[in-house]
């Protein structure tokens, strides 16, 4: 495969997925915030709660529109740009995507229409039910997508078939209850809840700083503080769960993001910071907390975690075995009943993916040299520096969210947050950070999986469609240009409606309407 084609395909996927994930976490979190606010409305009958649902719902809608727009691409991009991937793993990977549509996306998208337009046609209880179903649909959507993504990281419940030349499902339940998928799901939706809570907290803080619509802002702030604190705690705890499943199933990713070159005696320490010397495979200095990584990664004190050098050495053997598997497969593709090839293939097939890595360097498997095998083995651990730092930024942000929401909750309970201007400013300036954390998290997950699209099964460079490089330049420019334009429009609307606040509902109850000053805003 043409290297440029592979790089551009990856870049396009990364760009479209990262744009999509600017909108997803807010949707995930805000739906539950809307459920909580509407529950308060149904229970208390207070008008302000209905206004909250409608106003935050309006901002939710502005965000949701772009979530849908950018999501359409992702359902089809596997086919357009990753054709061989789609063939090779569609038997497993396609199922959760299709079920996501059937079970979740229909639910979410049908009820979002009633959420916006059903207020006067539904009873309070019915409308509340609609909001709940919308939230359930949104979150189920995330479940199935993460089942699909979890399988890319840890491909369980499946087996390669040389007759059909692809991976085939052997157990649907194993695919669903993949521990990596489950850990990723809860971690990802919690990150979404933090985003939703931060959004409401920050914008409410802005109204409080401007001393406008105080009752509306205070009640919103309180809901966000409580929901956000719970979510921020769970995102960190569940991230730790991800660390545990990673140590079992994705050792090369863990070793890379910890810059752990050597296998350290158990329990390994957790590096806070390090000076990474990638060329010489060592760290020049390290700031470390003893024991912690070993405990997170293995839940024990005596299981060692393998370092990068050990992983590469082990994978060198797997590449050698994989080359035999590829050779046998080539024979079997011509004559499926060749007994010698069949026996050889059975003996080596668990390393088939490692053999396929050599295709990046030479198309003909009989031309593979020991040097090529060395290169292939070395490529099985992703570049350390970008993973090490993005992971640390994400974790630091995670803890800082606990601090902010903790303070917000504390002063909510003491009922003095509206006067704490430092807290309100802190909340306001933190607004963009949950998005930064989410994008970093996805970078760690996806870049950390390289050189594979399906870990240890299918190399990235074999996964792409056989398109021309010109097509990729054109489509990449088109996507980035189109999305950027739409993002500018979205941000314009968000800022406009965010600044005007609940006055945009046209109820006559809020600041700018009472001033008769809508236009001057």
């Amino acid at each position, binding site marked *: 495969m043409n290297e440029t084609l592979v790089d551009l395909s990856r870049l396009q996927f990364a760009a479209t997925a990262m744009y999509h994930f600017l909108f997803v976490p807010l949707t995930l979190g805000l739906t539950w915030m809307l459920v909580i606010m509407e529950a308060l409305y149904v229970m208390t009958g207070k008008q302000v709660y209905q206004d909250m649902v409608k106003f935050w719902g309006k901002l939710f809608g502005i965000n949701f529109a772009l979530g849908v727009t950018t999501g*359409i691409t992702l359902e089809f991009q596997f*086919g*357009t740009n990753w054709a061989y991937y789609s*063939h090779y793993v569609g*038997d497993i990977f396609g199922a959760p*995507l299709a079920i996501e*549509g059937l079970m979740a996306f229909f639910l979410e998208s049908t009820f979002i229409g009633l959420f916006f*337009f059903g207020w006067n046609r539904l009873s309070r209880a019915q409308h509340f039910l609609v909001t709940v179903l919308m939230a359930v649909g949104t979150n189920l959507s995330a479940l199935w997508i993460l089942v699909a993504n979890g399988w890319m990281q840890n491909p369980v419940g499946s087996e390669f078939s040389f007759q059909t030349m692809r991976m*085939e499902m052997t157990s649907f339940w194993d695919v669903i209850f993949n521990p990596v998928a489950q850990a990723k799901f809860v971690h990802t939706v919690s990150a979404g809840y933090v985003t939703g809570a931060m959004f409401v907290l920050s914008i409410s803080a802005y109204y409080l700083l401007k001393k406008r619509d105080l009752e509306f802002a205070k009640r919103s702030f309180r809901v966000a503080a409580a929901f956000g604190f719970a979510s921020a705690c769970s995102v960190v705890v569940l991230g730790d769960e991800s660390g545990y499943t990673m140590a079992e199933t994705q050792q090369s990713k863990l070793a890379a993001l910890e810059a752990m070159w050597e296998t350290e005696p158990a329990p390994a320490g957790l590096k806070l910071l390090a000076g990474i010397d990638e060329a010489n495979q060592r760290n020049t200095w390290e700031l470390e907390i003893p024991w912690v990584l070993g405990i997170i990664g293995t839940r024990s004190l005596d299981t060692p975690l393998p370092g990068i050098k050990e992983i590469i050495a082990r994978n060198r053997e797997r590449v050698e075995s994989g080359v035999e598997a590829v050779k046998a497969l080539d024979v079997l593709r011509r004559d499926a009943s060749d007994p010698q090839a069949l026996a050889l293939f059975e003996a080596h097939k668990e390393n088939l993916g490692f053999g396929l890595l050599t295709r990046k360097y030479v198309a003909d498997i009989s031309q593979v040299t020991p040097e090529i095998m060395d290169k292939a083995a070395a490529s099985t651990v992703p570049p350390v520096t970008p993973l090490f730092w993005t992971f640390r930024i994400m974790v630091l942000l995670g803890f800082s969210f606990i601090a902010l929401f903790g303070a917000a909750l504390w002063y909510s309970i003491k009922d003095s947050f509206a006067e704490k201007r430092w807290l309100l400013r802190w909340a306001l300036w933190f607004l963009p950070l949950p998005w930064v954390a989410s994008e970093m998290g996805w970078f760690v997950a996806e870049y950390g999986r390289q050189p594979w699209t399906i870990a240890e099964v299918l190399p990235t460079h074999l996964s792409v469609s056989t398109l021309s490089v010109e097509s990729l330049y054109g489509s990449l420019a088109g996507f980035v240009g189109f999305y950027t334009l739409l993002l500018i429009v979205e941000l314009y609307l968000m800022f406009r409606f965010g600044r005007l606040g609940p006055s945009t509902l046209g109820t006559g109850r809020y600041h700018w309407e009472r001033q008769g000053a809508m236009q001057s805003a």
Partner: protein
Amino acid sequence: MMDYETLKVIWWLLVSVLLVGFAVMDGHDMGVGTLLPFVGKDDTERRVIINTVGPHWDGNQVWFITGGGAIFAAWPLVYATAFSGFYWAMLAVLWALFFRPVGFDYRSKIDNATWRKTWDWGLFVGGAVPPLIFGVAFGNLLQGVPFHFDANLVPYYEGSFWGLLNPFALLAGVVSSAMITFHGAVYLAHRTEGEIQQRAVRAALLFGVIALVAFAAAGVWVQAIPGYVIAAGADPAGLPNPLAKEVVREAGAWMANYRQQPLLWAVPALAFLGGLAAIWAVRAGRTFFAFWASGLMIAGIIGTAGVAMFPFILPSSSDPRSSLTVWDSVSSHLTLTVMFWATVIFMPLIIAYTSWAYKVMAGKVTKAYILENEKQAY
């Protein structure tokens, strides 16, 4: 567990159902989008038109998304080959669709004529372009598409975007566009009143006639283009391997299924009966009946092409044995079974709550409604 061969046929039916569901459900709001700039003469009229589909377009669009997912899960080779082969056509569909979510949600949030007119044309593009391209794509499927697989089943597409725009395919595009616009016009007539309704009825008559005439013309033409026949090798019950068969091209081959099983003529007949009934009903003011009749017409038109090609899905013109069929482009037995049960469980639920959503929002959308809900309506 059902046997593999039966499941393969069931999945051909289920994908057809999803395609028809997409055309009937998302089709009517795409038709409405296509008509928007022409039927709506001022801002309030346009808001009336948009709000007839406002609460529903998003749910309807999921037929498209789920259709894509189902093809991925059930026919991975078709998903891989068709979407990468039709790369620019597919991107044109996606980019056109981008205008819809933002068009619907953002248009009326700012009170500015230029802003709103711009989004109206966005909604037009989002409504008009996808049915046109899908029609053109179908026209190309009927003629065969230039692609082949290598021994490892890597697909290579040998054609170009411009090659898709041949006369027969463009006629198929006209069929598809006219039928979807007709369907949208019928729906609009059902949900509006007064002048907007009258204009919608006139549009329905125009596009209904175009759809039926173009469909009849395509039916005559298709007999002259070479179809595809499996000469040997495809094992309906066997493991899927598209390279294990021999395929020949033969003039009139697409009529073979109709010759062998004359009952299948009911499918194209349904298209004409549905279309004529819908045209009659929309003139007579029986718009609800007309909507379902035009839905039947859509099912008949899509079904006609599907039946003609069966068991072919994506015939290859340059390397006929690489052609993808119902027998050799499918997922494993287990995946087809799992997906079958997922569809059987969820499809009735989807239909039930979608019907409820339409019932809740039923009735005419009026100018008075728009003025009363200035801030809330689209």
